[in-house]
């Protein structure tokens, strides 16, 4: 008997939902629920919180996020190549390596830009 593995994953997910869901949904019932503006103030080193918490945030690490997006795509392409690496001709593998090599230059330039604090 071989069930479809995806079906098994769905069943596993349902089991998890049934068994982990009550861990938060049940305690809410016996937890005090009436909100109180002063009691529920966010923690800020024991002081009264000042200003808004969700202020504009720094741009400093934005380039790394962009690099992540690009290499996420590249990584997925590489996995597709890697899983059939042993069965495809060497020429095709060289093509994929050329693909990687071509991406080296922008990666280096992006890193250089990211590390330059003046830009951000």
């Amino acid at each position: 008997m071989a069930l479809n593995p995806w079906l098994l994953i769905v069943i596993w997910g349902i089991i998890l939902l049934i068994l982990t869901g009550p861990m938060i949904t049940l305690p809410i019932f016996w937890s005090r629920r009436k909100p109180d503006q002063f009691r529920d103030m966010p923690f800020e080193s024991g002081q009264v919180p000042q200003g808004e918490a969700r202020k504009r945030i720094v741009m400093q690490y934005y380039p790394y996020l962009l690099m992540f997006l690009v290499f996420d795509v590249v990584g997925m392409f590489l996995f597709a190549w890697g899983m059939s690496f042993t069965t495809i001709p060497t020429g095709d593998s060289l093509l994929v390596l050329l693909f990687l090599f071509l991406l080296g230059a922008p990666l280096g330039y992006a890193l250089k830009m990211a590390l330059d604090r003046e830009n951000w």
Partner: protein
Amino acid sequence: MVNLPTTPTDIIPFIIAIVTSHTFITLVIFPGFIHLTIVVMFLTWYERKLLARIQLRIGPLYAGGPGGILQPIADGVKLIFKEIMIPYKAEKPLFLGIPLALVFLGALPFAVIPFGQHWVIADLDVGLVFIFAVASLFPSMILIFAWASNSKYPFLGGLRSLFQQVAYEIPMWISALSVVMLAGSLNLVQIVDAQHKIWFIGPAFLSFIVFFIATMAELERLPFDLPSAEPELVAGWFTESSGAVFMVIFLALYMKLYLMSSLITVLFLGGWWGPTFLPQPVWFILKTLVVATAIIIPRGVYARLRVDLLIKVGWTRLLIIALVNVFITVVLVSTGMLPGLGL
């Protein structure tokens, strides 16, 4: 598969047939839920004991049973009955829902981890990519949770967590690529099968190191624990969580620790393979615990890095080392220097 019951008398044999079927056992008992709960509770206890030994802190030693082994249960009961504080102006549905999603996503990939040749819930063709896809949801979840808390420390911690996980995910993928190339498959069962003769820690040693470091960064373990740096950010992105919410997040973090340790075992340490005097799952769990120990120990020893250095190291050093190992693998496999790997 068994027939659906048609008469009332058939129901009990039907239930027995379901409960004793291999599918049910894998789902609920062995690699499934019960085993997972026990191991995760054990890990929380184990980390405390280990750190207590290292730093000579003999705290939770007497909480019932030998060596305070009932401590996790006491913790759980305590936390469940505490009040859930929801910060003023927080986004309530997200604040309560994201922790559940975190523990769900932390446990979901166990469906594809093979604990033994037949001890796997779902023998998935794209198992490794499935794990990476599910794990890639964590950073956004943490960012949303931090944002929903409406407090400054969680928000700062959440941003740090996002950048850190993002910076170390790519080196992790590329280092796993060498293993995929050696095994010629994304199916975790086949990856372990291919390590029957040589564990991949040998031919892919650089990848192993990169993967291990990246794992520690993904798990926000010292020396990479910037997102929850206690002296700076109180408790990082889960500062505002309390009671059951805190418990669920805690559980999710340990679930992820177990998941990544077992992934290292599968990819590099030969999975279930070992001398035959012990059954396969025992070998698997032993190896996983050794890896988990290696991940936990630095917490008692090291100090932490600065955030920009951390991200820089991930993108420059680790990525390049992982790529070097990919080239080494290309050369090794295409020149036929690695015979008998099931290729």
